[in-house]
């Protein structure tokens, strides 16, 4: 059988990710597309730990750990240095979780997107502050339990639409991706590598401890996120939207919710409310996919 992804690996198995961690898959696939001529910045996030403690690293690319809110700005600094030092071939990537992207890092993200700095910004989204023990973030969806939105007072606010926020900056390339569709993620990264300017890739990354799901269900959940339409796969190139995986017969959101303990408390009425929100958002995106 011919492999659908390159067999070269730039991430070694000795990492510290939890079983079933989506962020681990996201990095492994991304690196296959980015290649070794790259530099990464990590803010505070799960990957601060996953990479391994000093003096170990499971990655075969240079990596600068940076402060929580500085992913994009520090990557911009590296990009400027590479240019002035004659290393324009080096691909500079910021790699942050959802807290570092949606919340504390949004200012630096916006600044770099507005300046159209020639960098990749990857957000692996596990929908809460998982590394600090599952606190809600701006990326946590409606209805979810977290340690700061306990069951009795589950999260009542919608997930912030970071993709729309980035879109408002008119960056040359942005895309969503799921760890259940590695070929799609790979293709998007390879395509974006050929584009100069700011590239934003938002990857849904299941987190068994935070989602209260089974490790063996992570890929299934990342697939259901797409199939239910709560996390559609698409890309935006120079303002033009295109859906990269069509989902004409979307599965009910309950299929996705019921595999996750963080939604166990939801009543039928609550689930119906989530379904309504998903449908509304999907309809909004469909208009953009069809160019209306």
């Amino acid at each position, binding site marked *: 059988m011919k492999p659908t992804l390159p067999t070269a690996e730039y991430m070694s198995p000795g990492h510290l990710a939890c079983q079933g961690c989506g962020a681990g898959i996201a990095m492994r696939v991304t690196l296959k597309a980015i290649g070794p001529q790259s*530099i990464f910045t990590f803010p505070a996030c799960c990957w601060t730990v996953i990479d391994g403690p*000093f003096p*170990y690293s499971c990655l075969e690319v240079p*990596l*600068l750990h940076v402060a929580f809110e500085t992913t994009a*700005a520090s*990557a911009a*600094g590296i990009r400027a*240095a590479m240019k002035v030092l004659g290393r324009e071939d080096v691909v500079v990537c910021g790699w942050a979780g959802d807290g570092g992207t949606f919340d504390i890092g949004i200012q630096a993200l916006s600044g770099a997107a507005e300046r159209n700095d020639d960098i990749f910004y990857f957000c692996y989204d596990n929908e809460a502050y998982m590394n600090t023990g599952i606190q809600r973030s701006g990326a946590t969806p409606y209805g979810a339990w977290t340690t700061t939105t306990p069951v009795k007072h589950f999260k009542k606010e919608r997930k912030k639409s970071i993709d729309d926020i980035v879109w408002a900056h008119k960056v040359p390339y942005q895309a969503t991706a799921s760890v259940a569709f590695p070929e799609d993620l790979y293709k998007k990264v390879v395509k974006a590598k050929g584009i100069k300017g700011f590239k934003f890739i938002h990857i849904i990354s299941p987190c068994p401890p935070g989602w209260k799901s089974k490790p063996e269900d992570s890929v299934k959940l990342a697939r259901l996120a797409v199939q239910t339409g709560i996390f559609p796969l698409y890309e935006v190139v120079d303002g033009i939207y295109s859906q990269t995986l069509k989902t004409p017969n979307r599965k009910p959101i309950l299929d996705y919710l019921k595999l996750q303990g963080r939604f166990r408390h939801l009543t039928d009425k609550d689930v119906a409310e989530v379904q309504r929100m998903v449908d509304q958002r999907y309809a909004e995106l469909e208009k953009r996919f069809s160019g209306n």
Partner: protein
Amino acid sequence: MKKVIMGNHALSYGAMLARVQVISAYPITPQTQVVELLSEIVADKRLAAEFIKVESEHSAMAACIGAAASGARTFTATSSQGLALMHELLHWAAGARLPIVMADINRAMAPPWSIWTDQNDSLSQRDTGWMQYYCQSNQEVLDTLLQAYKVSEKVLLPAMIVLDAFSLSHTYENVDIPDIEQVDKYLPPFVYPYKLDPQQPHTFGGLTTPEWYMEFRYKIQAAMEQALPLVTQAGKEFGDQFGRHYDTVDPFMVDDAETVLVTSGTAASTARYTVEQLRRKGVKVGNLRIRLFRPFPFADVRRHLKKAKRVIVMDRNISFGHHGIFAQEVKSALYGHVDAPVFDYIVGLGGRDIFPATIENIIARSQKAKKPSQDMHWVEVKE
């Protein structure tokens, strides 16, 4: 070439002569002219550099950190609230051992809003691991910038060039701008031994257990100690080449002085004028200007104050709940070595002028007392 320029432009020309490679900055009064001129110099291609016009001071320092970690010589400038916003990343730059050089235009912290000078912004960053130089003239600003890169790139510590808002930043003075060929001889290109490099991939700043963290801190302190003689050496070499000598401290008529006035920044100019006036009247007074604040030049301070009968520290800053900050430092330097009483005067906060008469009053008041009647005195304050 001699040119009449403002303090802020002395920084711009200094950065140009140092051939900085990445500049990242955000505007704040009274720093703006530093980066305005630099943005023009870069756009005109008179300097082969990248200028990142970031959306905050926090990102300015973050970009400098990324650039310096990649092996580029980096520069930024800020002031007051901007420096405070950077605080987290000042620790980061020092912890990552990146020889970034930054100018801070001393401006008082809000509230209430003030754009005028005092030192609480930079002195609040005392324990971040940055070297700090306090300048008296525009010439010194330019010269110090070149020396700062020379020292910082040897010891791998960041450095802050500090100058008073308006009384230096916006004051025009005659400045000798050295030829860049001469500067190249003094300041070789930056070669960072631990840079981010795909050919030699390494991880920097990762999670470090108690087994190793303390060693990283020990090495920063060791680098600070190593920096002290290097500042003296860089100042001497600069003098040998350009005719202007610098050291950690700058004594003025202290050798036979019974009373030594300790100052920093532009207050030294007024202090020296006053010292000369008083000397004509037979008062044995001198001035010791502290140029290097971190690392603190303990031995040099002791050496110049050992014969003094009294030491007067003028602090344009206040550590609330303690004393003036330079006085704390001077006392700690003298303790167990020099017995002279230390009088601490809080002066000129928020840009209030320090006149010769102010200084004369301070000296007269101190000379009447054998030792200070209180730990510190607020000068000309409306109680």
